[in-house]
């Protein structure tokens, strides 16, 4: 082969290879989020439950501060909120507690009862729900965790990430159509209860020293938990099922949650299985389309999350959210993760406690090095050991 021919051949081959590399280059990239914000939208999220302590109502209204360009949903306080049992005419008044309205502690809904929600705001606006019948709960008979090194594609990392798929088994009641919704809480033990950036933990706060401390710029200090403490995570996806194709079957290994490998600590997963009405299921289906199904080539057009709430005085007002009567069954599973070889998703700063050598920071407040911080109860942290956490 002469030199010229050889050169052409090389060009052709390299072109072909370039095609291999860039063919089918469908990709996902972050873009600036765009909104056409509207204020005054009222969102009601309410659950009446068969489990003690699980019933609640939240009321929020969207506020747009044009001069600051900020948008927020603020809690509507001072409202009169009632659960009304249309079977017995029982009226349960809910009490405002921080950012939530809750019924009396001993309140539980009974299966088969019909409940409505009635809300009166301080400004006279009134919101009601359509009636909801409390369905029968269905017991989880089996719960499993299966590790998958590529469980889900994470856009922010542009890669598949590892994690456990949680699946459940249950016997679907054969005599009627059933609808299910699952959520979960996961508990991981927490060793560091506070991290202070360019500051030190003193008397419940991170204290910045003036004049600046001897530590290098952008330093941080970590403080171990004083007591046992757990980090709580919640589901980020919507998992639902309509038994239209499996009515009356013994459901086995139905994946209902993904526990991503944020770290390799042992984890307890508490799954709640809700039995829902058809209209509640339809609502969660729209929610799933909005949250989980919006990114594909066949994404359905987004829909308004209008449930069963309405303003009786203004039929044209969109009232978002839903009043749902749900019966729940809870199951837990404990997963050991220390032998997993894949890398974790979350990068964690290594512990860097105060040493006590050198001048004491914030010495006006407290003398000596501080090594511990309390486990502060909250939505994402608890110091209360879950009853299924192994000893």
């Amino acid at each position, binding site marked *: 082969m002469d030199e010229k021919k050889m050169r052409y051949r090389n060009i052709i081959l390299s072109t072909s290879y370039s095609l291999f590399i860039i063919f089918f280059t469908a990709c996902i990239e972050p873009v600036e989020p765009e909104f056409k914000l509207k204020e005054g939208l009222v969102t009601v999220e309410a659950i009446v439950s068969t489990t003690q302590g699980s019933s609640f109502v939240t009321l929020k209204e969207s506020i747009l501060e044009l001069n600051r360009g900020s948008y927020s949903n603020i809690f509507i306080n001072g409202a009169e909120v009632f659960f009304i049992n249309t079977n017995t005419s029982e009226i349960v008044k809910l009490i405002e507690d921080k950012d939530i309205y809750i019924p009396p502690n001993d309140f539980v809904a009974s299966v088969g009862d019909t409940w409505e929600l009635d809300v009166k705001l301080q400004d006279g606006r009134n919101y009601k729900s359509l009636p909801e019948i409390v369905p029968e709960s269905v017991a989880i008979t089996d719960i499993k965790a299966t590790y998958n090194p590529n469980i889900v594609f994470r856009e922010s990392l542009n890669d598949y990430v590892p994690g456990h798929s949680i699946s459940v088994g249950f016997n679907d009641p054969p005599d009627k159509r059933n609808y299910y919704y699952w959520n979960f809480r996961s508990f991981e033990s927490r060793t560091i209860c506070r991290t202070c950036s360019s500051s030190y933990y003193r008397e419940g706060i991170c204290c910045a020293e003036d004049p600046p401390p001897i530590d290098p710029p952008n330093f941080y200090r970590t403080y171990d938990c004083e007591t046992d403490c757990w980090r709580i995570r*919640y589901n980020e996806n919507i998992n639902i099922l309509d038994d239209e194709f499996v009515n009356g079957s013994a459901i086995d290994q139905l994946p209902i949650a993904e526990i991503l490998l944020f770290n390799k600590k042992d984890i307890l997963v508490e799954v709640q299985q809700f039995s829902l009405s058809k209209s509640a299921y339809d609502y969660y289906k729209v929610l799933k389309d909005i949250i989980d199904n919006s990114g594909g080539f066949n994404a359905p*057009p987004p829909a308004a999350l209008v449930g069963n709430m309405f303003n009786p005085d203004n039929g044209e007002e969109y009232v978002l959210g839903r009043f749902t009567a749900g019966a729940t069954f809870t199951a837990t599973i404990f997963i050991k993760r220390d032998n997993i070889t894949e890398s974790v998703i979350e990068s964690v700063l290594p512990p860097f406690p105060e040493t006590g050598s050198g001048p004491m920071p914030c010495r006006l407040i407290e003398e000596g090095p501080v090594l511990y911080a309390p486990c502060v109860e909250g939505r994402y942290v608890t110091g209360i050991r879950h009853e299924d956490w192994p000893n």
Partner: protein
Amino acid sequence: MNRSYFYFFVILFSISFFTAQSQNFELSFKVVNEITNKPIEDVNIFIEPCSCGGISNSNGQFSINLPKGEYEISFTYIGFDENLQNIILNKNLSLDVQLNENEEKLSEVIIKAKKTNDNLESLQMGVLQLKSEDLVKIPSAVGEFDVLRGITLLAGVNNSGEMSNGLSVRGGTLDQNLLLYDYAPVFNPTHLFGLFSVFTPDVLSSVNLYRANIPARYGGRTTSVLDIKVKNPYVSKLKLKGGVGLVSSRFAIETPIIKDKLMLISGIRAGLTDFLLPFFSKRLENTKANFYDGTLKLLYLPTEKDQITFTGFYSKDFYQLDLITQIENINAENNQYDFKTLNGTTNWLHTFNNDTNLRTVLVSSSYTSKNIFPELESTNEVEFESKINYLSLISELSKKVSSSFNYYTGIQLNKYKINPGELIPGGSPTISPVLLTPEISYEFSVFTNVNWKPLDNLSFSVGLRYNYFLFQGPYTLNSYDEIGGNIISSEFFEKGKKVNSYSNLEPRLGVNLKLSKNSSIKASYSNVNQYLQNIYNSTTPLPTSRWKMVDPNIKPQSSNAYSLGVYKNFKDDKVEVSLEGYYRDTKNNLTYKPGADFFLEEALEQYVVQGKGKAYGVELSLKKTKGKVNGWFNYTWSKSLLRTENESLSNRINNNQWYNSDFDRTHVVNTTINIEGDKYNTFSFNFTGQTGRPFTVANGSFELEDITVPIFLERNNSRLPVYHRLDFSWNVHFSKSKEKKRWQNDWTFTVYNLYGRKNPFSQYYSQRDGRFNEVFSDSPLASYGLFVSNSPIVSLTYNFRFQ
């Protein structure tokens, strides 16, 4: 004497004048074969404006005496390309004429058959046409010319992006176009979720898109008819054609089976290279994508007056793609798509005389789509299957009464059988089988169309089509309460019992007023009703999207389309310019209730909303058809709007206000330039730019447990960024340099999206993951764009021809 001199000079002057005017010169030719240089005998030589001529002798020679002047001479000979010469005869002239051997060395029988057929396929007003030679010039994504992509470069034609399972014509939806492949409807026209169209590339003859006054012989879709024809194999010797590409490879054969009686063309294409995908991106690890299609056409000429053709078409796809939403309520490892089309057309053309023909066509079209659900930790596969079967008999008589009057009239009987869905559990102990009731319906149509030219510069095309649509049982007819949400009663209709019927009279009108030799004004009106629609609640349908006939609850869509255009040709018709305006209103346009889910749903009407639609626009088109640099430029300004009227607040779309449809594009520019450099190299550029597709942005967000939920109250209230793209194609026909070579090769090198424009297919919200991201700033939600191609896509295809 003076008087005598006067007469003498007058006579002398007259003689010299007339002699000068009628001075004859000899014009002689020698006609030879361009390749062999051998003389050709019996070449037809026709000279204008004298309308004289003759045939060449055994030495290929011919001579004639003609007066001084300008002449156009045509040389024609069977099996050779026509040669046209323009000469100025002011002296004796001897010319050597070379005729180029045509691909096809055809007999008189075939020539006659070909002419008869071509006349019948002649065009009518308001049609856009792409011939196969135009199609091959358009750069495609992966080195192959493609019908649907080519059509989107014409004025008023669009799609829903790179991944589009069909066409949008003048703002209509994808299922409002009737796609015909040799008379047989194609229900799913694309491979690989829209990357390629299914029509076997090497066997295509022509592509006609009727979007204004749709001819009366067509009906059933409200927006347009895309009529794709397979070549009639008028061949006398074997011809092979094919290509090898990285995504697909193809092969076609044309051959006589019995000389002058029976001929065949057949093409096949297959794409089986999906095993390479994981090398490109981790995201494609779980992706599978294989496809193939094949077309076979037999032409039988039993007598001089009869032509019978049979066209068979088969297309099959299988794919699995992470970027498609999984179907709810079936527990599976993944969702796989498996779908196929099987069409057959028998076409008998009988010629009574030169002016009268009868065409009878029998069509069978079948489309089967499957979702396969491999069960978790099991070898069992659950399947969902749906099917549509279409049978049609068409008979059409056409007659040319005079040069100014011709007509066609005919009947069409269609039968539709739709199996909306069946869930087949296989060996699954938990899944219950589901079988939705099949839908059976008939459509009977009578049509006629008259083309009348009362004046030299005025012609009319007047058509009328009458449809009677009959929907039969088995069917459960539900009645709903006033809001439309709850079933209040049901009535079951036995098999064969009439459920309901619709009848519609559809006028079609076209007027052409010629203002001068090269300019005209055209106006048209057409009314079309649609009895079959594709139900999908997304931007583009999935191959498994459901087809639905109209019934008592879902009414036929109906459109009235008006258009007016001005057309002018320049430079001896080498440059064509047109300006067309259109307005179309549609009623019973199908849209879907928020959150609608149609999978295996018996009472589909609960999830659809029928509303109004209107579309209007202006299209400017400039086309240069000849010359070394040719191509076209199209600009369209248009609107496409929809509106629903729904009592229930939660079921309203955009609160019952007019909103932009998915196919609304305010500005669209398409340009194609072909540079035929020399006989070895051809270059093509294609630029397309358009206003971004409407999409929906959130009106706010709220927290639900740990999930941030976007709030949507409007639909299509924003637009994706402007879409633009430049493609390049370079074709090297290197084998032309060698004489007498039957085996010809060329390479096609294409670059799709030459400057690597990132055109988003869609944009959507996602949860923030706690990490700082500059792009998202302090937004409560993350947002991502889905880009089908974000860099130039280079492809190289080897093509061959043997003839």
